[in-house]
Structure formats: C-alpha cells, structure tokens
C-alpha cells in the first residue's frame, strides 16, 4: 500500500507521514516559541514543490485552528481586549481584501512565486537578524553576570498626537484608532499574500507602538489572527481556489500533537536561548529561500491553466 496521499487542490501526491511530521515539527516549534507557525509552514510546503499559491492559501487555513482555541482560552481568562481586537480585525479585513487582489493579479502575470519568495526572504531575514543580535547580546550580558535589561519601548510622540482617540479599558490605553487600523491592515495584507497569521508582526507592534500591556497582547493578537485568517481562507477559496483542506487537515493533526510537546520543551529553555534558536531557524529558512531564487531552476518552463474551469 502506498503511503502517498493525493492532495486534491495541489493536484499532487505527498507522503502522509511527511505531512503529519511537518505539521508536528512546526507545531512543536510553535508550542515552544509561542508562535503561530504559518511563516514556517509556507516555505516548507514550497520546498516540497507544493505550488506557492496553494502553500499560502492552505497555510492561512491551518493557522485558524490553533489561534481560535488560543484566543478562546485568553477570552475565558479575560486577557483579551475585544474592542481593540475588533478594530484590528476591521483593519485586517481591508488589508486581506487588498492582499487577495494583489495575490490574484500577481498570479495572473506569473510573478506570484517570486514575490512570495522575496517577501519571505526580506521578512524572515530581517526578523531573524534582529532576533539573533538581540538574543546574542542578552546571552552575553548574562554571561558577564549582569541581568538582562529589556529595551524600554520607544517614545512615539507623533503617534500619541494623532486624532480620533479612543479609550480601551481592558488594555488601559488611550490611543488614536489610526495606528490600530493601520497595524491591522498591514497584518491582514501579509496574511493574505504570505499565508501567515502575522502574530510575530502584531505582537511587537502592539507592545511598542500601541503600548498594550504584555498580558493582553497575546490574546488580542490571537483574536485578530483568528478572524483575519478565517476571512483570508474564505477569500482565497473564492478567488484563487488555493485552499487544500486535505493538506491543511494533515498539517493540523500533526500540529496539535507537536504543540503539546513543544510547550513542555519550551519550559526547560531560557527565553534568550529560545530566541537565539528561533533566530537561527528563521535565518536558515530565509537563506534556503534566497538560495532557490539564485540557482538555476530545473524547469525553466512552467505551464498553467488560464481559467480554472471545473
């Protein structure tokens, strides 16, 4: 019996244990680092020759599950700012709509794969380098016997001066809705083009720009990610038919299992060690994607249907 499973939307066969294992590996890392994992799933699928469009659409679907249950447990613990979350979602929906338009346009002109790869190289490369430097310094400081000092959030005076201020009671902040909507929008656009939840952009943005207390940040971020990636999934399904439920399901099954062990493993490592490990991983993926752009591909020619008639 063949262990390959046919993926109906990707229109290819992959080994079932490879897919569950991939989900488990990414789930393990997401549990360990407390991240969504969408930005790891998409490049991994691309490495295994899943078409970029399908990798992105499916990854958005896969992100929903873990963020929905995460958001719900934060809601029960009242560590979720619903009002802030809804505004972030509104911005996110607009970002997602525009992102999907850009996605379809890029696909039609045949540059989607390139743009996805470039965005990943830039985003992962940038974040990886920043994290590596930051965690390396923190480790050195600890090594020299000093306590790690967290950088104080910068003083963004101009953001505080923006109009349309709103009070968010749960977060105890009084801030203009403009940066809230803009952040939501950016994450929505990234979610639709790159297939990521966007937590690793949303969390720092909320901490440093909006000054949301750290205990509220994760729950609110998960709330936004849940709704925006659900919306993106539907949009991807309607516009590009790029969501493969069989693929998403297998990744999620692996993910659920992997996340349990990841959370346990994460407790044994120090925060700086975790961040350095994460930085190395992120940089490795960015390099691998960059490498793929520069080496001569095996197939210089590729063929695609113009209109996907059923």
């Amino acid at each position: 019996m063949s262990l390959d499973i046919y993926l109906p939307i990707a229109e290819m066969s992959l080994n079932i244990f490879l897919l569950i294992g991939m989900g488990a590996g990414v789930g393990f890392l997401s549990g360990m680092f407390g991240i969504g994992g969408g930005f790891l799933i998409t490049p991994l699928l691309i490495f295994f020759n899943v078409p970029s469009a399908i990798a992105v659409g499916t990854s958005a679907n896969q992100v929903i599950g873990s963020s929905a249950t995460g958001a719900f447990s934060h809601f029960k613990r009242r560590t979720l700012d619903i009002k802030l979350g809804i505004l972030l979602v509104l911005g996110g929906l607009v970002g997602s709509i525009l992102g999907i338009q850009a996605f379809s346009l890029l696909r039609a002109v045949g540059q989607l794969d390139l743009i996805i790869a470039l965005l990943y190289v830039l985003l992962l490369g940038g974040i990886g380098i920043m994290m590596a430097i930051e965690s390396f310094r923190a480790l050195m400081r600890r090594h020299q016997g000093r306590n790690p000092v967290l950088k104080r959030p910068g003083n963004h005076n101009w953001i505080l001066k923006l109009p349309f201020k709103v009070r968010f009671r749960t977060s105890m902040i009084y801030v203009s809705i403009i940066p809230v909507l803009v952040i939501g929008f950016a994450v929505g656009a990234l979610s639709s083009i790159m297939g990521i939840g966007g937590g690793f952009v949303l969390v720092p943005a909320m901490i440093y720009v909006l000054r949301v207390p750290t205990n509220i940040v994760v729950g609110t971020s998960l709330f936004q990610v849940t709704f925006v990636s659900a919306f993106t999934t539907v949009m991807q399904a309607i516009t590009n038919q790029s969501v493969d439920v069989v693929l998403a399901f297998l990744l999620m099954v692996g993910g659920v299992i992997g996340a349990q062990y990841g959370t346990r493993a994460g407790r044994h490592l120090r925060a700086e060690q975790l961040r350095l490990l994460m930085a190395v991983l992120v940089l490795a993926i960015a390099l691998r994607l960059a490498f793929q752009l520069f080496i001569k591909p095996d197939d210089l020619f590729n063929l695609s249907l113009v209109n996907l008639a059923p």
Partner: protein
Amino acid sequence: MIKIVLSLMIIWPVCFLGCLNTAFADELNPSLLVENIDLISTVDQITVGGNYSGSHLYIAGVIENTDPLLWRQNRYNVIVVLEGPNRELIMREKKRKLGVWVNVDALMFKRVPLFYAVATSRQLQDITDSDTYRELGLGLNYVHLRMLSEQTQMKELFRKELIEIKKKQKLYSENIGAVVFAKGSLFKVQFNLPANVPVGAYRVHAYLFKDGAFVKEVSTSLTIAKAHLAYSIYRAAHLHSLWYGIGAILLAVATSLIGQLIFKKD
C-alpha cells in the same frame, strides 16, 4: 470468386427490374469498394474510480471492405487518438534578471488538449509519410497547437517545451503497438489514463491507412469523469467555493478543539 459470381447472378434480375445502374454493381465488387473504419462505442462516459494509480480505457473499432490480399500482408494500419479537454494554457520561461531567476517570456496556447494520446498499430514512420502526418495534424510532432504569438522561433521553442512537460506528466504520449487487430476486421486500443488525467470532454479519432495512404477518419466523443473523494473535494472547491471556504474554517476549528480535548485528559 465463385461466391461473387453467384451473388452477381442473383442480383441480375433485381437490376433488370429496377435500375440499370452500373455503380450499384461496382459496389459489390470488393476490389472497387472503399474501405471504411468505424468505432464501436459502448459508453460515452468513463468514470475513473478510486484508484489513484490511474486506469485504462479500451476502445474497439471495425474496418470494413478491406482488400483480403493487402489485409493478409498487413498493409492496413490504424491510428487512434484520444484527446481533450481543450483549454487555454499559458507557458512562462524563466530567465536570469539581476541574478534572480524570474518568469520573463510568456506565451498563450489557445484551446489545446490537456491530454493527447496516440495509439498506433505499428511504428509511425512505417504507417505513412511525414507530409500526411502534417496534413492531418497527427502525432506529437504535428499535433495542432494554436499559439498567440508572431515569433516563429519562440513558437517552435514553446511548442517543443509544452510537449516535453506534458510527456513528463504522462498526459501526452505515443503508444506504438497499442492498436491491436483482433478477430476478423476488428481492432482494439488500450489507453492508459494516469491518475492526473483531466476530466471533461474528450474526442476519439480513428484514422485508417492503406498501403501508406490515408483513407478515412472517424471520430466520436467521450466524457471522462472522476468518482473518488479527492475529485469531489476538487469540484466543491471550484463550484461551491464559498461553502468550501467556510467548511475549511470549521474543519480547522474542530480539529484544534478535538486536539485540545484529547490532550486535556492526560
């Protein structure tokens, strides 16, 4: 010979009574009769089942009014083509720009078959000459592929590459000897349908050749459908994409919830 004479003798009175049409008598003389080819179609829809490794399609046909002498010398040949469904395809070529491999050139193919399989009774070069193949647009070297481009050189290159890609995907093929002559004047063909065979409207063309010359072509249509779960999912994604998307969300949430319940217990 005696049989023919006898039948002519029986016919005589009829001709006297009816018309004195000489052509009528000619039709009864085998050496002057025109050969005919026909496909015996039993089904007009093939459903590829749950077997993901692909399946086979069998087609039978009949050749009539053959010259017994030429028939015995194997001078009759049949080529059967299974092709379809016709779609617009776009092919892109990657080139190096600023060190990065980017899709640069693109060419549109108008209504080309996604699947094209040729089955022959012997080697293509032993059936007829290349001029005839070109005229008929028959075989991988001469199949009509309409391209939207003015550049002959580019068209030639892209045409060659399309056929190469399709051959790799097992969607374009030439199957020498796949047409087998059976008892009497029957012939049968076996086509291998790979797991990735596209669904839709197909046509079967049968060409008869006599002593190197093209005699006749007949064709019939056929629909290929898929019945397995994977195809149902594919169809749902394309025909009911909104519900498919909502289903995908529910599946994600359900998987995660069930996972949480399982791991909470231990």
